[in-house]
């Protein structure tokens, strides 16, 4: 339920972008939904990379106590 709500909110935000005037400096900033896509990709990427990181650096909790 919450997921649906979130999804709806997100769609609403993108739609809103069509009616609101937006000031942009960088050209790609002005693309429709740029921030939305970038935010989605960023978090997705961060989590996936972080997950891979675990392979190298995960240790048992008493690692340093030995």
């Amino acid at each position, binding site marked *: 339920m919450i997921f649906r709500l979130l999804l709806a909110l997100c769609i609403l935000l993108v739609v809103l972008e069509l009616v609101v005037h937006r000031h942009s400096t960088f050209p790609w900033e002005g693309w429709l939904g740029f921030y939305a*896509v970038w935010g989605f990709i960023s978090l997705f990427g*961060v989590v996936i990379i972080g997950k891979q990181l*675990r392979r190298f650096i995960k240790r048992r909790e008493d690692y340093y106590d030995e």
Partner: protein
Amino acid sequence: MSSLPPGLILILGGLVLPVLPRSVQAKGALVLPVLGLLQLLFLSEGMSVDVEIAGYSLLPVRVDKLSLVFGYIFYIAAFLAALYALHVRDTTQHVAAMMYVGSAIGAVFAGDLITLFVYWEITALTSVFLIWANRSERAYRAGLRYLVIQIGSGVLLLSGILFYFHESGSLLFTQLIGPGESLVTAGPGVWLIFLAFGIKCAFPLLHNWLQDAYPQATITGAVFLSAFTTKLAVYALARGFPGTEALIGIGVVMTLFPIFFAVIENDLRKVLCYSLNNQLGFMVVGIGIGTELALNGAIAHAFVHILYKALLFMSMGAVLYRTGTIRASELGGLYRSMPWTAAFCIVGAMSISAFPLFSGFVAKSLTMSAVIEGYYVLTFIGLLVASAGVMEHSGIKIPYFAFFGRDSGIRCREAPIHMCLAMGIAAVLCIGIGCFPDLLYALLPYPVDYEPYADFGHSLTQFQLLLFAALAFAVLLRMGLYPPEQNAINLDTDWFYRRLAPNVIHSITNNLANVTDRLTATTRLAGRTLMRSVIRHYGPEGTLARTWPTGSMVLWIAVLLAASLVLYFV
């Protein structure tokens, strides 16, 4: 009263606290920041006190807008943390906390480098007791590592000051790199000072003392720690190195690398430490850009960050206080038991994620505008990724795994009333600043010509960024791709000094011992043979060995006399 160095009230007051009965100490610690803040209100800008020590004129107190803004927020944070710690009946913690805050405040009002150094070291020496106050072997060791690094930073600072003094003949703490110069052309003194600040500011690869030590601090100690040490470093950088290009790169890396660690960290207070590290990156970038707008951004960010990071540490502390654990893998569903704490935590989370109408937004916007204004494309992209990262670990992970998510079955009481009060005040301040940013802007050192809510598009894109990031989180959860919380720890740079260095030293000393054993055996043999041939009638033992030690002492005299005679005649 106005000639009293700011911060001294807390340092002296802290020393008086042990005399009071235990039950009154916590209240005393609450009163002191209020007195300090009152004193600060009477200080006038441009005031300074100079004295002469050891033939050098020093400036122990210098009041300007930059130091004032840090002074205000430090006192506010100290008050909130002291309120939060009202239940603590541990003299050590109260004394250490008050002296720690006092010296941090003293440091931001220090006009010369020697005074800065003195306060710098006192913050290190006092703050470590907030870690040791946990009174466990693990906390003791973590505290010791923390102390060594902090003192190391102080030693670097002092050596840097010496070099700098030698080069420039000045001990005044002002901008250390001139407008036309860069870090590359600066002398060793400036480099050492930069490094000292960098350690305290948790620059990449110099950062790990933070993640190592803070989670070992006491519940209330962590709240104090989160506010002062690193922000003192931010202040020092803002004062000494504004506009130093290298800081931009350093800052971007700082915002990025902790977010990956935060994803897989199980200890929620440690997650907050990574988040702290990442937030410092934003401030460092602002200082690196060095325009008035960027510096305002960095300082505003430090101001609001102290509030919401303290709020987050307080909420996690309350969880730890009530449940006895802070592992994400063992928590969840606490909103039923601790609704108020959960609500305050969400306010903190939204502030740090920079939702519009929350304090993080009005501060971060300044920095971001400065980045855009200066057309730093890569920096901008990096900071956007980092913003999504902040949303992930502080905005979602912290409240989600503690208060929602899988129900851990833990049922406990709501946090004590004074904790709720402290969190409540912090939350109100977070929202208040978010809604009325001019209150904050008025305190900043440079005039602010910026209106965060003027351009609705800006708020909209921020909403998009954050909510789509949240959406990604939800998607990952639903797809089962989100890494599950596990009872495990993750290596960080502390591995180098906690594991690698001891191992290396161990093997080196083993080898060295072998070598020296062999060497001494050889020399002993040679010495014996020599002795046997020289003084045969003294037997195979060798006179030197037998008459040790008086004889050998006298022999040393003879050797030295002969040596000096030879040297004097050559």
